[in-house]
């Protein structure tokens, strides 16, 4: 195994282009755990720690927030810049693992691993985030929703690095929330839900919802969102949205809960996220 510590993105991309089966080392929270379990033994580690420009959170004039791939979960959890419709991303970051994990793990590393029970994927899909990917030849952007393609599978090709995640300002006056149900504090989600809502005189005029832990990728269902838009977010509307989402999910059976159980509680977790987001949207508007 080789170890590279590039200081520029260009160098890093070059190594990745030339090394077969090299892996980027971001925070290590997932990759090193897999290496320790002997699940992975890459030919080379390409540390991104010294690469300039990959960490940090920037708020743009248009209200979007760009989070560098090497930004630690704790930094995202601490940033007040993520507010309104973006707040759920901060909320999700604060629920990842435990303090030491949040000090290590990075947003780029987390989404590249693409565990559907992780917190970022669901939050980013809900927030309509864009993932910026670069390789030695080109740079491209892809919607979070299209970035996650399967269990631990993403749109990343060999040689690609996630360099940033951008969260658009979204709808004015929106409130958002991320709700998670896990066996114990800090565990991956059994079920999670992200919600962005905007209200006008108590009526929902915008809704974006995703649920996590219930399929190979975060699940969004347009019809479920449509159930909320135009409603006053009464229980029946939220429940109807939950039913539509549950119908689109295909959860695994594992130690975090059976497939059936996940579907049983999904509407509740969604309802809790909606009610939190609603209070926040009401405060904004």
């Amino acid at each position, binding site marked *: 195994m*080789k170890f590279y510590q590039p200081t520029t993105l260009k160098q890093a991309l070059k190594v990745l282009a030339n090394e077969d089966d090299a892996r980027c080392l971001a925070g290590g*929270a997932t990759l090193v755990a897999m290496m320790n379990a002997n699940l992975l033994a890459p030919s080379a580690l390409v540390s991104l720690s010294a690469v300039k420009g990959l960490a940090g959170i920037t708020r743009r004039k248009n209200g979007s927030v760009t989070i560098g791939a090497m930004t630690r979960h704790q930094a995202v959890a601490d940033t007040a810049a993520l507010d309104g419709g973006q707040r759920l991303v901060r909320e999700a970051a604060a629920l990842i693992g435990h303090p030491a994990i949040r*000090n290590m793990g990075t947003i780029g590393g987390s989404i590249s691993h693409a565990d559907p029970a992780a917190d970022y994927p669901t939050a980013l899909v809900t927030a309509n985030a864009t993932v910026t990917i670069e390789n030695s030849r080109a740079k491209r952007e892809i919607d979070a929703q299209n970035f996650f393609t399967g269990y631990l599978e993403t749109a990343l090709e060999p040689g690609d690095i996630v360099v940033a995640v951008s969260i658009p300002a979204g709808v004015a006056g929106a409130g958002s929330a991320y709700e998670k149900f896990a066996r114990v504090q800090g565990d991956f989600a059994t079920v999670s839900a992200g919600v962005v809502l905007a209200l006008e005189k108590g009526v929902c005029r915008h809704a974006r919802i995703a649920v996590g832990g219930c399929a190979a990728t975060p699940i969004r269902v347009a019809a479920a969102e449509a159930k909320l838009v135009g409603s006053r977010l009464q229980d029946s509307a939220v429940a109807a949205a939950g039913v539509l989402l549950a119908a689109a999910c295909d959860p695994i059976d594992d130690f975090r809960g059976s497939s059936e159980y996940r579907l049983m509680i999904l509407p509740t977790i969604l309802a809790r996220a909606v009610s939190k987001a609603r209070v926040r949207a009401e405060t904004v508007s």
Partner: protein
Amino acid sequence: MTTTVPITLTINGALHQAFVQPWHTLLHVLRDVLHFTGTKRGCNQGICGACSVIVDGEVVRGCLSIAANCQGRTITTIEGLANGNTLSNVQQAFLELGAVQCGYCMPGMIIAATALLKRTPKPTEEEIREGLSGNLCRCSGYVKVVRAVQVASERGTS
């Protein structure tokens, strides 16, 4: 093909050098190369927290930190908290409150508590529980651990 990587670490105020393999973790290097055995290996998966150390001021998992990636960093381990025979505030409170049983999780627990109080000097009970949520202990039931951190916090930092 393997590549040995030379690293220099500042551990508890002193410089240490080691040659490491790319897959070696900071935990491995601390324990098995440099013999800082106070830091414990409990799961090697980042779950139990027994390997917690402070790197550049922040608590991390030794077992998930690649040693080669720690080149030039400043590390505090459990061996570095006391000043001679004078225990740190956190250590002293753990001692007095009887928070320590088998002690295997305690180096990580005390490191996590120290980092917590640095970030949040006057935490609420909830903040203490959250701050220590990644450190498993099978003996204590946590009650005395949380109380000890409260006592240490009331006495101020150091």
